[in-house]
C-alpha cells in the first residue's frame, strides 16, 4: 500500500466565494494522520471537503496531495476516496460490484478485483455479504460497505463526510471505533468531517475547528479542549466559564488577570498564553480577553469554612450562589452566579438552588483567551 513516505495533504489559502459566505482556509494533514474538521452546520466543512475532492472548483489557492498540485486534476484522476453521509451505494449494483467499482474503472484484472473485494469485506467484518444487494443492508452495514468501496482503489487520501450522522447513538460509537482501527491499520491519510464534538475528540490525531468559513483553531484534542483559542472554540466543546478580564502581567510561570470592574479587586492566575495559541495576528501586549476554565476542573467548598481565605495556586470565587443545575449521571453541572458573572462548575453531590458556595479552580486549569483584535 502506498502511503506515509511523502508529505500528505496541504491546503494553501484556498478561497471560495459565495454571495453570503466566504471560505478561506489553510491547513496540513500529515501522512497517515487522522484529522477532523469540526464546526456547526454551514461553517464550510463540506465545502472544504468538496474542494479537496475536486467536486467544486476553488477561486484561489493550491491543494497539494503528496506533493502534486491537484488544481487541474479532474475528480476521477485524483487518488481520493470519499465516504458520504448518505452512503451513496449504487442501488443498481450488489455489494461486491459496489466495492469493485473503482477497481473496474481502473481496468484491473478480474481475479485481483475478486480477491481485493473479499479482503475488504473481511476488513469491515462483513465477510459473508459478498453477493447481497444494497437494499438488504442496515444503515451501519451500508456505511461499512461504503468505507470498503472508498478504500478499494487504495487512495492516497480518505475523506469522510459526516459518515455517522444518519445512525443511532449506540451504533455511532461502535462504528467510529471501527473506522479508527481500520484507518490506523492501513495508516491512510484521513480527513473527517463532523459537527459532533464528542466524535471529533475521540477519533482525531488533530482537530480543525471551523466557524463561518474560517479556521478558529488547529490542535490535538487535548489542546483544543483545555486551551481554546477563541470564545467560539471554548464554547463549541461543551460547558465552560468565560469571564471578561484584563491581562495585568505575564511571566514564565503564570499570567495575571483582573476583572474590569474596579470594585472587584480580585486578581486571578492562569497559565501563560502564547502567540501560537491564536489563529489571528496578535501582539504580545494584548490587554483584553477572557478567563477560561472547564467545570470539571472546579471544586466546591462550603462558603463559611474558607471565608475570605485564598489558597496558593488556586483561584477562589467567594460568595457564589447556585442558580440552577443539570444532572449528568456522574454528578451535577451547576450554574452559579458570582458578582453578576455566570460560572459553570461541577459537583459530585447535590446542591439546592440558592445555596451559598465558594469555588476553587487550580490556576493551571485556567487559561487566558486574548480577544481578537480585528
Amino acid at each position: 500500500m502506498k502511503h506515509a513516505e511523502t508529505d500528505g495533504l496541504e491546503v494553501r489559502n484556498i478561497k471560495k466565494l459565495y454571495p453570503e459566505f466566504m471560505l478561506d482556509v489553510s491547513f496540513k494533514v500529515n501522512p497517515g494522520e487522522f484529522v477532523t474538521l469540526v464546526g456547526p452546520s454551514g461553517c464550510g466543512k463540506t465545502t472544504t471537503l468538496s474542494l479537496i475532492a475536486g467536486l467544486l472548483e476553488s477561486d484561489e489557492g493550491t491543494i497539494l496531495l503528496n506533493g502534486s498540485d491537484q488544481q487541474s486534476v479532474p475528480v476521477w484522476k485524483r487518488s481520493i476516496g470519499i465516504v458520504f453521509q448518505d452512503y451513496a451505494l449504487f442501488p443498481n449494483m450488489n455489494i461486491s460490484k459496489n466495492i469493485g467499482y473503482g477497481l473496474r474503472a481502473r481496468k484491473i484484472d478480474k481475479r485481483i478485483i475478486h480477491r481485493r473485494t473479499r479482503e475488504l469485506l473481511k476488513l469491515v467484518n462483513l465477510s459473508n455479504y459478498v453477493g447481497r444487494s444494497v437494499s438488504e443492508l442496515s444503515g451501519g452495514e451500508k456505511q461499512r460497505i461504503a468505507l470498503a468501496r472508498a478504500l478499494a482503489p487504495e487512495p492516497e487520501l480518505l475523506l469522510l463526510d459526516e459518515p455517522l450522522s444518519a445512525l443511532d447513538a449506540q451504533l455511532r460509537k461502535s462504528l467510529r471505533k471501527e473506522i479508527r482501527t481500520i484507518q490506523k491499520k492501513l495508516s491512510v491519510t484521513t480527513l473527517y468531517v463532523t459537527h459532533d464534538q464528542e466524535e471529533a475528540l475521540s477519533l482525531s490525531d488533530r482537530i480543525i475547528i471551523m466557524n463561518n468559513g474560517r479556521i478558529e483553531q488547529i490542535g490535538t484534542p487535548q489542546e483544543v479542549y483545555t486551551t481554546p483559542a477563541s470564545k467560539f472554540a471554548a464554547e463549541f466543546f461543551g460547558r465552560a466559564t468565560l469571564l471578561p478580564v484584563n491581562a495585568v502581567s505575564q511571566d514564565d510561570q503564570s499570567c495575571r488577570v483582573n476583572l474590569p470592574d474596579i470594585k472587584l479587586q480580585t486578581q486571578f492566575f492562569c497559565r501563560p498564553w502564547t502567540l501560537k495559541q491564536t489563529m489571528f495576528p496578535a501582539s504580545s501586549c494584548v490587554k483584553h480577553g477572557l478567563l477560561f476554565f472547564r467545570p470539571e476542573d472546579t471544586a466546591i467548598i462550603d462558603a463559611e469554612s474558607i471565608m475570605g481565605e485564598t489558597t496558593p495556586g488556586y483561584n477562589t470565587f467567594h460568595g457564589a450562589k447556585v442558580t440552577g443545575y443539570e444532572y449528568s449521571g456522574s454528578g451535577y453541572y451547576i450554574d452559579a452566579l458570582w458578582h453578576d458573572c455566570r460560572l459553570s462548575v461541577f459537583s459530585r453531590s447535590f446542591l439546592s438552588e440558592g445555596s451559598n458556595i465558594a469555588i476553587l479552580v487550580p490556576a493551571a486549569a485556567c487559561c487566558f483567551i486574548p480577544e481578537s483584535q480585528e
Partner: protein
Amino acid sequence: MLTSIRGRGTGSITFFLSIFGIMLLVPLFFVPVGAVLSRAFFSDGGRGRLTFAAIGSLLTSSYIWRIISFTLLQALFSTAAALLIGLPGAFLLSHYRFRGRFIIRAVSSIPFVLPSIIVVLGFVVFFGNNGYLNTLLMQLFRLDKPPLRILYTFKAIILAHGFYNFPIVLSIVAGYWEQVNDNTELAAYSLGSNRIRTFLSVTLPKIYPAIFSSAALVFLFCFTSFAIILVLGGGPQFTTIEVEIFRQARVSLDMQSAAGLAIISVAVSSVILLLYILFQSRMRSGTAGFRLSIPAASEINSTPAGAARLAIILYIIGIIVLAAAPIASVVLRSFQAQPTRGAEAVFSLKWYRQLFAAEYGTISLTAEAFKNSFIIAVSAVSIAIPAAVGLSYITKDVFPRKPFIPELLFMMPLAVSSIILGLGYFFLSSFADRLPIDRLLMVGAHAIITLPFILRSVLPALQNMRPSYTAASLSLGAGPVRTFFSIELPMLKNAVISGAVFAVAISLGEINATLMLAAEQTITIPLLLYRLIGSYNFYAACAVGTLLILLCTGLFSLFEYLRDKL
C-alpha cells in the same frame, strides 16, 4: 452533506445529448412554429408587407370571440370534471390500504395508455344512441327511444375530457398527498379543529400545488384538444380554436387567419404551461421537507371501515362504468355483427376478416396502418428519449436556480397544439416542393410531440437523483462517460421507460399533426380509425380499436415487465 457538483459533472456525454436535444427542437419545432406564427403578420402567403390587420380583424370578429370563449369554457368545465372524478380517488389511494387499490390504478391507467381516438370510439359505442348503455336502459325500463342523448352535445365533450384526463389528477395528487401526509391534521384535531376546518386550513394549503398543477395540465390538454371535439362535438356550435385553425388552413386555405388563431392559442397555452411548471416546482419544494421525516402515525395506511369502505366501493364501480365500460364496449362490439339491418347483433369475426382482406397491393390497409404507426412511433420515441435526457441535463445543470426558464422552453411542444405544428411542417414542406418526405416529417413531428412527455418523467427523476452517487462514482476513478452509463442512466431507467411507454401510446394515437401531414396514400392507425368513424362504420372501427388497445396494453405490460427485469 453534499448537495451539488458543479462544473465537473458528467460532462462530455451529457453535453452531446444536450446539443442533440437542441438540434432536434430548433429545426423541428421552433422554426416551423415560428414560420406559422409569422404568417399572421404578412399578407400574400408570407411574402407581403408587415401588417397587423389579420390579428386585428380576428380580434374584432364576434365569430372568433365565440370560438375563443367556447374553447376556454369547455376546457374549464372539462378540468372541473376531471378534478371531480380524480380527487376522491386521490384521497382514497393516498389514505387507505385496500384490496381494490390495484383496480383503481389499473382502470385509471386505461385512458393513460390509450389514444384519444379510442376514447372517442368507446364513448360513441357505449354512450351513443345505439350504444350499450342506452340499449341496456331501454331493455330494463321497456322504452321505445334511447333515454340518454349525450352524444354530439356539450355534455359529451366534457364527459369525454373528464374521463380521458381524470387519471392525470389522480396520479399527480395521490402521489403528492401520500408524500406530504404527516401529523399536522392530527395536531389540528387535537387543538379542537373539526374535519371541515382542518381540511380547509391544514390539508388544502398543503396539497394545493398538486391540485393546481394537475388542473393546469388537464386544462392545457382540453384547451388544445382536437379529435374529441371534432368527432364528439360534431357541429359548428362546438368549434374550438384548434378545430377552427384546422378548418381555416385545410378547408378555407386562409393561412393568415389560421396563423392569427395559432398566435392566440399559443399565447394562452404558454401561460397555462408556465403555471403548470411553477406549481410543479412548488410541489418539489413541498415534498423536499418530507423526504426524511417520519411517516404520520394513525389514519394513513389504515384499512378502511364504515363510510370509507362504502366510498371506495362506490368509487370503483363509478370509474369502471366511466372508464372501463367504454373501452370494453369497443372490444365487445368488434366481435359483433348484425346479420340483417335492424336485427339482433350476433358474435362474428366478420370485421377482422374484412380488415385483413387484401385490398392494398399485397398487404391489407390495416396491416399497412399498423406497420406505419409502429415504425413512426418507435423511430420518434427513439429520437425523443436521448433528446429529453439531454434537455433534462441542461435544465438541471445550466439553470439550477431558475429551472423553469429552460423547462418552459423545452416543454413548449405541449403548449403548441400538434395542429399548429403540423401546419408548420406543411408550410416548410411546401418549400421542399412536395418531396415525398411526409413520413420523415411525421417521425419528426411525433418526436417533438412526445418529447415533453418523456421530459416530464425524466427531469424530476434527474432533479431528485442524489448528487452523491455521481460524486462517488467520479471519486472512485470512473470518468464522466462511464459514470453516465453505469450510474446515472440506470437510475433514470424507470423514468425513461415510463415516459417512453406514454410517448409510444401518444404517438400511436396521434392524429392531429398526422392529419395535416399525411399524404393521400399514407395510412396510420388513427387515420384509419378516423376514416372508419367518419363513414359511420363503427363495427370495423371497433375492430381496429381493439387491435390498437391490444397493442397499447401489450406494450405497456412489456415495459412494466422490463422495468423490473432490466
